[in-house]
């Protein structure tokens, strides 16, 4: 996982991309973005930030106002057929014919890429089996559960074996077990060389899966770096401690801000780079036994919220 290949042509190169809806609403304000081949890349941002517009332009469902996009060196305007051949897209909302059967949806999609029926059927069987849909292949797709429909869209996006897979919130509304199995599947195809771009609201997902990340807000890229580098920017982390004995008040320890959350819980703020060994030593001296410790929120989420909140207009207060 998290391997960037030696191929020097970027999987995706976006230059000065802008999009204005109607006369006034600027969804994208001249963004630049490069995703290297083999990367597992997260595109994060609050609702309405411009993530889906960016993805829509890359896969030609949205018309850009200006700028350029190339996929593995193929410009989406000048060389659209080759650019499209390299892209597989899993949109946020279900966009297949609910009356068609999974097997037909996949074979038809292969046909639109010029793939003959024999190969299409082989790949259909492979992907439906890998994604646990093979037994339901003859049933109208409207009868599938939400998670199955989402997996069907992943299988459809992979049927022409694209080098770049774009997933717009693929695990939204999916239960935890299924989400984990989808992560494993995505990691597997990334390891086999497919570049993946992911938008998600589950920041744990981005932190677990992705090597690099861009944060988009109000139509601009506000961060574009590696997940590790981004997390280093986190100035304070908040940990939640569960104690064995009941606490009547928060203990005082020099160098740490500690708050009591309930009778057996504490929240401790730890600055970036600060050791937590002295904290445990001090708690031990006060006869406070810690049973478990965890992050209050996902680290990336904490950072993301702080970044986006800084940019909120004053009227939000």
């Amino acid at each position, binding site marked *: 996982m998290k391997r960037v290949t030696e191929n020097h042509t970027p999987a995706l190169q976006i230059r000065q991309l802008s999009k204005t809806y109607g006369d006034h609403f600027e969804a994208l304000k001249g963004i630049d973005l490069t995703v290297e081949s083999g990367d597992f890349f997260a595109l994060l941002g609050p609702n309405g930030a411009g993530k889906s517009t960016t993805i829509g332009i890359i896969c030609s469902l949205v018309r850009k106002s200006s700028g350029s996009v190339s996929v593995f060196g193929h410009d989406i305007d000048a060389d659209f057929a080759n650019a499209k051949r390299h892209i597989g897209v899993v*949109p946020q909302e279900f*966009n297949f014919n609910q009356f068609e059967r999974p097997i037909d949806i996949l074979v038809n999609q292969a046909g*639109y890429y010029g793939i*003959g029926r024999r190969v299409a059927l082989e790949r259909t069987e492979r992907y439906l089996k890998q994604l646990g849909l093979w037994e339901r292949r003859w049933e109208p797709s409207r009868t599938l559960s939400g998670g199955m429909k989402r997996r069907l869209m992943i299988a459809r996006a992979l049927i022409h074996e694209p080098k770049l897979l774009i997933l717009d919130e693929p695990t939204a509304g999916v239960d935890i077990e299924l989400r984990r199995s989808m992560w494993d599947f995505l990691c597997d195809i990334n390891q086999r060389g497919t570049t993946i771009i992911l938008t998600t609201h589950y920041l744990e997902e981005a932190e677990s899966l992705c090597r690099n990340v861009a944060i988009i807000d109000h139509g601009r890229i506000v961060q574009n770096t590696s997940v590790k580098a981004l997390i280093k920017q986190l100035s304070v982390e908040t940990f939640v401690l569960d104690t064995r004995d009941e606490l009547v008040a928060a203990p005082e320890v020099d160098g740490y801000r500690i708050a009591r959350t309930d009778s057996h819980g504490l929240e401790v703020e730890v600055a970036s780079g600060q050791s937590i060994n002295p904290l445990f030593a001090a708690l031990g001296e006060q006869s406070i036994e810690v049973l478990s410790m965890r992050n209050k929120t996902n680290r990336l989420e904490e950072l993301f919220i702080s970044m986006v909140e800084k940019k909120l207009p004053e009227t939000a207060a």
Partner: protein
Amino acid sequence: MNRKEIWIAFATIVTREVRRYLRMWPQTLIPPVITIVLYFLIFGNLIGGRIGEMAGLPYIQFVAPGLIMMSVITNSYSNVVSSFYGSKFQRNIEELLVSPTPNIVILLGYVVGGMTRGLGIGVIVTLLSLYFADFSIHNVPVTISIVLLTSMLFSIAGLLNAIFADSFDDISIVPTFILTPLTYLGGVFYSTQLLSDFWANVAMINPILYVVNTFRYGISGVTDINIGWAFAMVCLSIAVLFSITLRQLEQGSRLRS
């Protein structure tokens, strides 16, 4: 895409369209057949027997070509408009829009899909009409070519309607308020010789008059209009609508944000 890939994409769209209307056969195949049988019963047998002759033909033989052509027109049109708009509504048109399939192949795929239904219904109605009326084909090339061109013309028109449609109301407005009146006023049930000069001249701007009369000429040798002129009009209409529809697809307006 190379030629083979383009052919596969085209065949995929056509096959999917055929499967769609076969899957929905109680909605797509049975109603038009019942409607035309009722027309034959009422206008052909019951009323037609009292009318006598029209343009030198027994009335049932006069209306039969018009009724066949009417079924070809409405089914070609309605197949494409409902299928394409349905794809827009469910957003599965995006499956095609994200693929490298050229726009002209998308256009031709939908049009040929619509033609298979229009022509299929036309064949069924022709076989049924033989039960009600005796007729032979006067000019085979004219009959076949005009029915193919008509089916193509109205399939393209259906696609254009679907591209512009923003709601299901929009795909029923054209058939209800334009196509049906033009069909009824297009010489299916009467000869323009019955009209005054003024209304006969007005009728000449109705494209359905040309296709119905040309088809009637192919079947029975009787026509109110010049056949060469009719073919020219139909071909010109196809060329114009084809160009507009392809341009819409190329620009992506009303399909892409």
